[in-house]
């Protein structure tokens, strides 16, 4: 039992990384990025190519693509997504859905449909034992990164001038302009940070398992479920939501190998029925 819980939480850590970027973009600009999963997979493939091209180790390769991801996210928001923002959420949904299709097909064109993974050598299989429980080093590392990322995001929002700007622009765009902020730039910075998390998630996913161009929508679903379970706009909520999702899936997998993901969806439905605002909602009105 302890082992199931532990493995579930470790899986949830990865899901948290899938979801934090989504949570951030929704929190700052009420934008639901339906291409979240595809961007994660794109990040994974980018990491694979970066490692192949430069000969860097997987870890260093990942560190190199994170700043590039920031720039890509910044540019995407500044030149594409900003144009879709407004009272009506439909344009942003349609545009990100279109991006999702473009990315999937582009990846298929470049990398073919073969699954690939990011070789990390021994660490992929390394594990240690605590009494009778075996813990993988890579999942534990991923979990640690997820918790660290949540702490960093929460601290960024709570204690820095940039975090205040994010909250202010989200609260009242015009009043924020009166204070000297340019929403177009603040949004771009938010998406840039979200894309750093996306690249990190993609790289870790490619280390943990194989990735294929068509994997995105499934990851989007996990990210979305984690954000909704946790409550829109709260990073700790997103982390808890992701951990719960990982845990439920792991329990399902143990009962029957085909039930894991289904169990996760069931738990998501139960939360939607009992507590539609999520466990820790921060979003106002």
């Amino acid at each position, binding site marked *: 039992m302890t082992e199931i819980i532990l493995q579930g939480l470790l899986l949830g850590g990865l899901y948290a990384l899938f979801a934090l970027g989504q949570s951030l973009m929704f929190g700052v600009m009420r934008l639901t990025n339906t291409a979240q999963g595809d961007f994660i997979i794109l990040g994974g493939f980018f990491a694979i190519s970066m490692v192949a091209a430069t000969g860097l180790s997987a870890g260093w390769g990942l560190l190199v693509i994170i700043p590039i991801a920031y720039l890509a996210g910044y540019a995407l928001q500044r030149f594409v997504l900003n144009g879709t923002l407004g009272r009506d959420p439909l344009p942003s949904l349609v545009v990100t859905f279109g991006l999702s299709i473009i990315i999937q097909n582009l990846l298929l064109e470049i990398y073919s449909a073969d699954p690939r993974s990011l070789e990390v050598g021994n660490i992929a299989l390394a594990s240690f034992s605590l009494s009778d429980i075996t813990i993988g080093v890579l999942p534990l590392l991923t979990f640690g990164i997820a918790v660290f990322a949540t702490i960093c995001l929460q601290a960024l929002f709570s204690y820095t*001038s940039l975090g*205040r*700007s994010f*909250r*202010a622009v*989200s*609260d*009242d765009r*015009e*009043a*924020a*302009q*009166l*204070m*000297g*902020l*340019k*929403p177009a730039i603040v949004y771009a910075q938010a998406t840039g940070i979200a894309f750093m998390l996306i690249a990190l998630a993609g790289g870790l996913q490619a280390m943990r398992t194989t990735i294929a161009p068509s994997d995105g929508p499934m990851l989007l679903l996990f990210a979305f479920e984690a954000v909704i379970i946790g409550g829109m706009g709260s990073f700790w909520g997103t982390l808890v939501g992701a951990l719960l999702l990982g845990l439920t899936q792991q329990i399902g997998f143990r009962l029957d190998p085909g039930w894991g993901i289904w169990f996760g969806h069931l738990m998501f439905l139960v939360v939607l029925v009992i507590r539609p605002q999520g466990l820790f909602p*921060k979003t*106002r009105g």
Partner: protein
Amino acid sequence: MLQAQGITAAYGDAQALFGIDFSMQAGEIVALIGANGAGKSTFLKTLTGLLPVKSGSLTFDGQSLNKIDAGDIVKLGLAMVPEGRRLFPSLTVEENLLMGTLSGRQGAWNLARVFKLFPILQEKRYMPSTSLSGGQQQMVAIGRALMSNPRLLLCDEISLGLAPVVIREIYAALPSIVEEGMSLLIVEQDVQLAMQVSSRVVCLQEGLVSLEGKSGELTRDQISKAYFGI
């Protein structure tokens, strides 16, 4: 310091300003009055860049404001206390005030000075801004604008929805705000109050300036005619 010539502006197809001529000298306190829908708030929105100027010229210290991004105007020293206060609900009182420092302007105003002007805000600095009373929220809105050390402060209906005793308390703070030479443009529904605190009154009517004069020298009839058009 502020020069507006023939300013027109519109919300979509609905034109709201029909050619406003207006100017202010440094250190002046001017009250802008007029009936609802006369264009007072719209005019302030064009000054702060929130609404684009359709035609006419707008300059602040010789620099044209026509094409400047709203986010850059406060950096030139033009700040606004918006109608309805517009505090950031997810920020605390102190965080709201700190937003004013984003303009990067140095000057006499900082947290300590704002807390000295409105001591109650120091007491409530870590509270959510929405938990304060209307008058206290107005103090935060004024303090937040002052934190950007403006040279011209626009106040849009700072008495709206407040009890008379609170209004008196807020207006009592104005003299210490302007003592270092800051200029004030006040939009005020209460004409009596507007005349008391200002040195000059400008009245708008249907998007045009209908009357302008020294606060002490205008008669009731003049104002009533400029206000209502009858």
